């Protein structure tokens, strides 16, 4: 190793210097490069692009972009309004239920405060909730509970559990140990311990995460309607499939506007609680 450094210094004295490569072993470097190249070639052949179809679609793409300049809020105004109201109410309901359920799961999934069997059960719940896309869960819930916003609420609540519980558990695991020990040393009960030692340390971030999830749930509520779980997704899907891009643009602009507004509000709230 030191001879390598000496060689590099000697070479640099003679004016030859290159930075050290990211991967020191030459064969591995070449293997990685070659692997990437082979992968690109394989992907290229597995993507079967019908260029004629793409060229044809370009007009439609431009029409879609142009429709953002002429969004049509009116002709399907009724559907948009009910869809949006449903999305918003679903979002609020699902976020509240999801967070309430996520708190015990998150506490259970924090290694430093929970016993092993509980830890594994909670981790399994989190893994399942996080693996499956909201759409998949929505399909299952629609099959079980029928069409309508209830399936959507349950879907979003289920997804919220995995999201919040995982991050909550990580935050709890990152808390400083000294206050935990200090409160325990006062003879506090388990609940008092959680309330006085753990809660103050995680609260600001927890509020931030909850607001973030509210935002995500709203965005998701715009798609699960596609499979019949309520919300604005159904309206959006129909309008796109009918090539009624002016209505689609209106819905998308509304979604973007609401996301922007919620981000602004959550930024203010986060600054306020921090």
């Amino acid at each position, binding site marked *: 190793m030191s001879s390598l*450094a000496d060689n*590099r*210094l000697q070479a*640099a*004295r*003679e*004016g*030859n*210097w*290159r*930075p*050290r490569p990211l991967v020191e072993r030459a064969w591995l470097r070449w293997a990685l490069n070659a692997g990437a190249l082979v992968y690109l070639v394989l992907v290229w052949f597995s993507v079967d692009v019908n260029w004629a179809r793409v060229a044809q679609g370009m007009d439609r793409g431009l029409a879609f972009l142009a429709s953002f300049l002429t969004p049509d809020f009116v002709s399907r105004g009724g559907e948009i309004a009910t869809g949006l109201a449903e999305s918003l109410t679903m979002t609020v309901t699902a976020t509240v239920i999801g967070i309430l359920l996520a708190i015990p799961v998150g506490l259970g999934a924090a290694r430093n405060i929970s016993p092993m069997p509980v830890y594994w059960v909670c981790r399994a719940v989190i893994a399942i909730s996080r693996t499956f896309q909201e759409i998949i869960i929505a399909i299952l819930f629609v099959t079980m509970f029928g069409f309508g916003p209830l399936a959507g609420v349950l879907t979003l609540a289920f997804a919220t559990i995995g999201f919040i519980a995982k991050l909550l558990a990580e935050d709890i695991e990152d808390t400083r140990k000294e206050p935990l020990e200090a409160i325990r040393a006062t003879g506090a009960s388990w609940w008092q311990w959680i309330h006085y030692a753990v809660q103050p340390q995680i609260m600001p971030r927890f509020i931030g995460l909850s607001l973030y999830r509210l935002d995500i749930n709203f965005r998701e509520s715009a798609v699960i309607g596609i499979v019949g779980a309520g919300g604005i997704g159904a309206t959006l899907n129909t309008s796109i499939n009918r090539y009624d891009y002016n209505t689609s643009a209106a819905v998308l602009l509304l979604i973007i506007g609401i996301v922007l507004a919620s981000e602004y509000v959550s930024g203010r709230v986060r600054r306020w609680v921090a």
Partner: protein
Amino acid sequence: MLTLKGLTKRYDTGDLALRDVDLQVPAGQVLALIGPSGAGKSTLIRCINRLVEPSAGTVTLDGRELSTLRGSDLRKARRQIGMIFQNYALVERLSVMENVLSGRLAYTGFWRSYFRRFPADDVRQAVHLLERVGLESMLDKRGDALSGGQKQRVGIARALMQNPKLLLVDEPTASLDPKTSRQIMRLICELCREQNLAAIINIHDVALARQFADRVVGLREGAVVYDGAPEGLSPEVLTSIYGEEDWNAAQRVEDDAAGDEAARDVDRALMDGHP
């Protein structure tokens, strides 16, 4: 060589950081700029290489007016002026060699610099400078693997890579322990003498200024209140720069610090006091 005339800086906040500063620095002179925090020392040297835009006044380097330059002319002027920073300002995730070679960026095209294809002469000079500051064995170390003193040496080598005519040095020792501070100051001054470089050194530490500088300029509230030899820094002068304080007590510590051996004792004592 460097002439400042009527240099004034008012920040957008309305704070007047420099008022009407006139200064002439001949080639090869090491000038220490002293003054309390907020006196405008940092602003002054940043106005010279235009990291801060002066509000009024002129900066002339070798007869060339700098305060109106734009674009590539400004960059060409900047490459004649090396700068050394308080917090070293190394790019910590780059290697020592890359940090030193970054001093040649203004002489190198973008793609050449992006792919690290520096001319052989630059590489030779970089190694030479690293040897001069005693870090040639650290060639491939990353910036964040170095100690404070080592980082500052790399910072010095980077500034000298520019083959500057003038060095701007911003609190080079503020983040270093007393012994390393002396070593760094000595190194900077030696290099200035070797290459006949002019240097403007912002410094908090009056003792260091007195020990190493050819000339001292005192700044208070953005205006020059003292300009003369280091020996002229009497308690009255220091009071005019810094305000009321028992300067004789400070004086005694500095007198003790005259000899190198004694200096080390003081350093140790200081470090014991503020570990």
